[in-house]
């Protein structure tokens, strides 16, 4: 992921070897051992000493306009990572760069400016001010900046419309449902038009149906705004729906970074494999993953986008037995047939069951570097 190569994606935020140790922030660990020793062993020693290494040697990049999902069981350090990125907690060690500038070197003043203009954050339990109504809650960041009332009103009404809360401006948080409260949280974080958007388990406190609805809303908003996003969840299906790339964490360490399909198909270890075990293959595989090499594209074949998930392709396949041509960038790249889908699924199934048959799809090594 070298951002100097011409057509590589542009990096918005990058962190390198970030550590956060609670209790006993003890510096001695970080003088020499970090760069030389094995991070796992070092973390184990810290635990032995009574410290809590919440984030252990985590490195990753967030590209401009992508949704980067951090996933892991509760207590695995997700929240701490994202708070290190926004400097709500001070990392014990490591480097965080925002637009190539060293975030950890920023003074308090500069940091406040960055938060006022470049960052927004959404919290699991909303973090709304109970004494302010919806409008004032959303306007809070702008009020704190001392923006003129006219600009404030205009911006606030716009984001409130964006999250679909128009008409509820004068309600207080306690008068709203969980889903509505989180809409307020989202609107507030968007009011300053941030470039970088952090969401810490934004939908985990909501009922499944509402959660699904909010995910759709979120994707709709992101489709319009194209923010660079760090999204935390402990729900793999949620991650699957929205992630461009994701990172799986365990005990503070990043176990694997990659596109969702990589994680399902090539889990780095049993921990990741267990996470992905119940994921329906049809949702993970894309049409381009299940091409039938024996078929050639014929004129008159129906056409579909090659990035479509197999799940969404199935109904059409049922109608077009002869196969569907897959298009990418205006060109066809192959044909999918019912047989090729079944073959791919069967192969994956065998692979997961632990037989030696190689998976039908292999991607490049996706361990974090």
């Amino acid at each position: 992921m070298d951002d100097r190569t011409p057509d590589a994606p542009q990096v918005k935020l990058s962190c390198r070897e970030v550590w956060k140790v609670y209790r006993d922030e003890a510096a001695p660990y970080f003088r020499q051992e970090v760069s030389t020793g094995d991070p796992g062993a070092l973390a184990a020693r810290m635990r032995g000493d009574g410290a809590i290494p919440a984030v252990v040697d985590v490195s990753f990049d967030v590209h401009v306009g992508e949704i980067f999902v951090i996933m892991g069981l509760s207590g695995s350090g997700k929240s701490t990572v994202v708070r290190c990125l926004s400097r709500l907690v001070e990392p014990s060690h490591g480097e965080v760069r925002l637009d190539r500038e060293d975030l950890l070197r920023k003074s308090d003043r500069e940091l406040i400016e960055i938060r006022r203009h470049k960052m927004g954050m959404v919290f699991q339990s909303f973090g709304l001010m109970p004494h302010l109504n919806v409008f004032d809650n959303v306007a809070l960041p702008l009020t704190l900046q001392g923006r003129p009332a006219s600009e404030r009103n205009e911006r606030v009404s716009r984001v409130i419309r964006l999250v679909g809360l128009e008409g509820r401006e004068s309600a207080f948080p306690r008068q709203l449902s969980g889903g509505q409260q989180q809409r307020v949280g989202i609107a507030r974080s968007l009011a300053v038009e941030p470039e970088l958007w952090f969401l810490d388990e934004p939908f985990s406190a909501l009922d499944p149906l509402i959660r699904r609805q909010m995910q759709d809303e979120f994707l709709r908003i992101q489709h319009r705004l194209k923010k660079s996003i760090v999204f935390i969840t402990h729900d793999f299906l949620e991650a699957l729906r929205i992630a461009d790339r994701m990172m799986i964490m365990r005990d503070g360490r990043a176990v694997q970074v990659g596109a969702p399909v990589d994680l399902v198909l090539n889990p780095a270890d049993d921990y990741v494999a267990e996470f992905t075990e119940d994921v329906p293959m049809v949702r993970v595989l894309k049409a381009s993953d299940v091409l039938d090499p024996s078929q050639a594209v014929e004129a008159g074949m129906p056409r579909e986008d090659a990035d479509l998930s197999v799940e969404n392709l199935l109904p059409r396949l049922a109608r077009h037995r002869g196969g569907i041509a897959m298009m990418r960038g205006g060109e066809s790249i192959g044909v999918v047939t019912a047989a090729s889908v079944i073959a791919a699924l069967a192969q994956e199934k065998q692979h997961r069951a632990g037989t030696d048959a190689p998976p039908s799809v292999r991607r490049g090594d996706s361990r974090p570097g």
Partner: protein
Amino acid sequence: MRRRLDWLQAGVVVAMLVLVLAPGAASWLIAYPAEWVVPITLWLNVFMSWCVDLAGPACRALSAALGVPMTAVRELLNWLPWSVTLTLATFVAWAASGWRLAAFTFFAILYMVVIGYWSESMNSLALVAISVPAAVGIGFALGALAFVSRRAERIITPTLDLLQTVPAFAYLLPILLLFGFGPVVGMIASVLYAFPPTVRNTRLGLSRVPPEVVEAGLMAGATRNQLFWRVRTPNALRQILLGVNQTTMAAFSMVIIASIIGGTADIGWEVLLTMRKALFGESLLAGIVIALMAMVMDRITAAAASAEPAPPGGNGRLRARHRNALIAVGLALGVALLASLLPFLEEYPEAWEVYPAQYLNDFITWIVVEHAKTINLIKRCAFFFVMLPVKTGLDQTVTPFTWGFEFTAPLRAGYALLAAALVAWVAIRRGIGSASLIAFVAIMVYFGITRLPWPAMLAMTVLLGWRLGGPRLALGTAAAFGFLIVAGVWPQTLLSFYLCGLAVLLSFTVGTALGILASELDGVSAFVRPINDTLQTMPLFVILIPFVMIFKIGEFTALLAIMAYAVVPAIRYSEHALRSVPADVVEAATCFGCTRGQLLWRVKLPLAMPVIMLGLNQTIMFAIAMLVIAALVGTNGLGQQVYIGLGDGDFGVGMVAGIGMAFIAMIADRMTQGLSRAREERFGLRAEV
């Protein structure tokens, strides 16, 4: 460790028994010899006069400076026509809570007018009106400081502990000496007495702001100042207002007490004066004024604290507040105009005053005479069968005159045998520790608490401290009791101990029983609640009045007054504890067939125990607070010492007793908390009230 403590305790009891039985045992072991008393009192006086020399002029200057706003407010309140004040107060009550409180306020103030205590009431109100904002300001600043800086917190918290346990009277002493007499002194005393609750609640409120809310503020780009004033403080406001409510009540009760030294034509002075002259009808009428003022203030501040933010209408909220202010001004002007036309609205005509003190006095006299037999019987029974046995022991109490028969040798032997049998049984069932406690009680009831050897008492309490709070509490207990012994106030301490202990025992028993009833029967609950509310907001020494009226001066009256006040937390906590037993536990128990009785005894009570123990803690604290006030009606304990010190302007005497009481209160507090915590840990519960 436990076992060793048990045996130590048994050893102490045995030693004590030997000591009190052995005829002519070393008398220095029974009563602490006067020659050994360390002249702490003297030192304190020397120290104080040094302080007065040093800081006196500055303090007097301050007092003079504070006199200016004080007088201004006083005159303003006296200048306002009563009808205007009445209208404004009623409107504020309506705005804060609704028409019920408004009606209550209206009648309460009307009472003050009609009874003819208007200007006295306004003088007292002036004191509160000045001291509450001052106390809240100081309290908020210190609370915020304690929140921001750990080091400051480490100093502030223990200081508050001490300030809040030193009896109210004892505050007056140093202030009296430093600032002299007068109403300003009352104000200073009440500020000092009243600010701690605001400190505590401010700190608590600020530290309870959810972390995500603070993080949201940070992410919104708040500076340090913005974070404090626009995120933390509004979020903590409710808790802070709760503190303001408590501060108001404390300031109010102190204003009354302060009139002992600074009384000038205010309502507290009126109560005191009439009580000293044994004009109980008059003092009851004045006392009711105080109680009404306290209740109105409590309800208004409490309503403000629990008020929801304005209902939807959003940005109109500010306007709504302005609207209320406008209405208030309009109303005031209107009524003032009316008052200038109708003079009786300006100044209530004396001819219209209703002052039924004489009828009250006659009525009371009639009751006392008519029911003299019953009253005497109650008094005698309580005295001979409950109070004296604890104070001087069965040994001296049982005579033909009191109990109707001689305490003959066989009877004494019978008591000893009975006690021994009980101790043996407990030793087998519950172990040596419990048995030695029972033995201690048995010995105490026989010889009386005032005749027990001081080393044994000291050793027992220290061991108890160790049991309940570990070595640190034991050390603290030893230091506190050592101080009282060495300072030469041990006999008074024992007297306080006896009165307070008895009151706690009785009110805790009665209160818990009532609480259990109230938790089972909604009718009882609805009946008890308003009585509790009233008792709790009543300034302490108003509670004394009705008891003095009927039972006259004496220890029994003091006991009743203490009980009346201390029973409230016992009822409250036990009802709350039983009602908040988790519903699923109760459902589960009902499902496998518990009867109502079994449910109560086997399920609810054990689970409620930690909170009930917290209630015991509060019962003790309330009793100690009332103990000092009860000294006014003739008790001979530490409370009386404080009072004597105050009367003679003897700083040392009053202070030793005041600090001693504070120590006892703190030790009792830690011990009962230890008890509650032990319960809690056993069940893996957390007590929260």
